[in-house]
């Protein structure tokens, strides 16, 4: 039952992130996935090493979200050059 609940949350958030246009909103939905996947890892592995794997995944996903969030404003000024 618990794995199913986590799976449904993950899929719902993935679909929502795919559909929504706003970039910051997408990032928040993906952050929920960044919580549910470590939980699924821990439930599946279920040994002491699962804590390390889950923590590493979580911290890495947070670092990359941090980097992406930093650049959110800067993309609006980009200039696109069509092939000349």
């Amino acid at each position: 039952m618990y794995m199913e609940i986590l799976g449904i949350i993950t899929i719902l958030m993935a679909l929502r992130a795919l559909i929504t246009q706003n970039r910051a909103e997408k990032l928040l939905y993906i952050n929920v996935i960044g919580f549910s996947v470590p939980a699924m890892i821990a439930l599946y592995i279920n040994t002491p090493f699962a804590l390390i794997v889950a923590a590493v995944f979580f911290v890495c996903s947070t670092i990359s979200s941090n980097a992406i969030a930093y650049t959110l404003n800067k993309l609006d000024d980009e200039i696109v050059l069509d092939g000349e």
Partner: protein
Amino acid sequence: MNEIIGLIIAAIISWLNFVLIDTYLGLPEEPGVKGADNVGHSIKQRGGDLSGGFFQGNILCSPDASAGTLLASIGFMVIGINGGILAAFLVYIGNRLCADPGYAGTTGALTMTVILTIFCDYLGFKPIMFVVGMVIAIFVIQGIHHPASTKLLGTIARKFNRYTKLE
């Protein structure tokens, strides 16, 4: 302990643990990094609350008490009380890797370890309920409707006198 009721109670307790600790330690007051600032203003543009938006941005950009709660629950589930303490240490490392000088994550992990010891060893809950409960709690905050959840977080921030003074 009935599984569904236990799961709902665990979700509420996880939600309270991370929201109250994060609010008390000042997450709604200002963005810890530039990314949190961007997210906060984006939510404000969509009709949300700025203080709640900074809270959401701080959750996104660095391990905070929500991370501490989740990892402490996982640690307690697989190892026991030592797992909760180890999780606090791992969250501390994660904070410093994300250039966050705060202690919200470690505090959240340690308080959650205490809560888990009380609920799982004496009240008949299972640690897995708290792991899934924490994911449900973060889904409620970040996965349903951002303007509404930020308004709730902003109200809680006002009660704790942590509302942001920035614009």
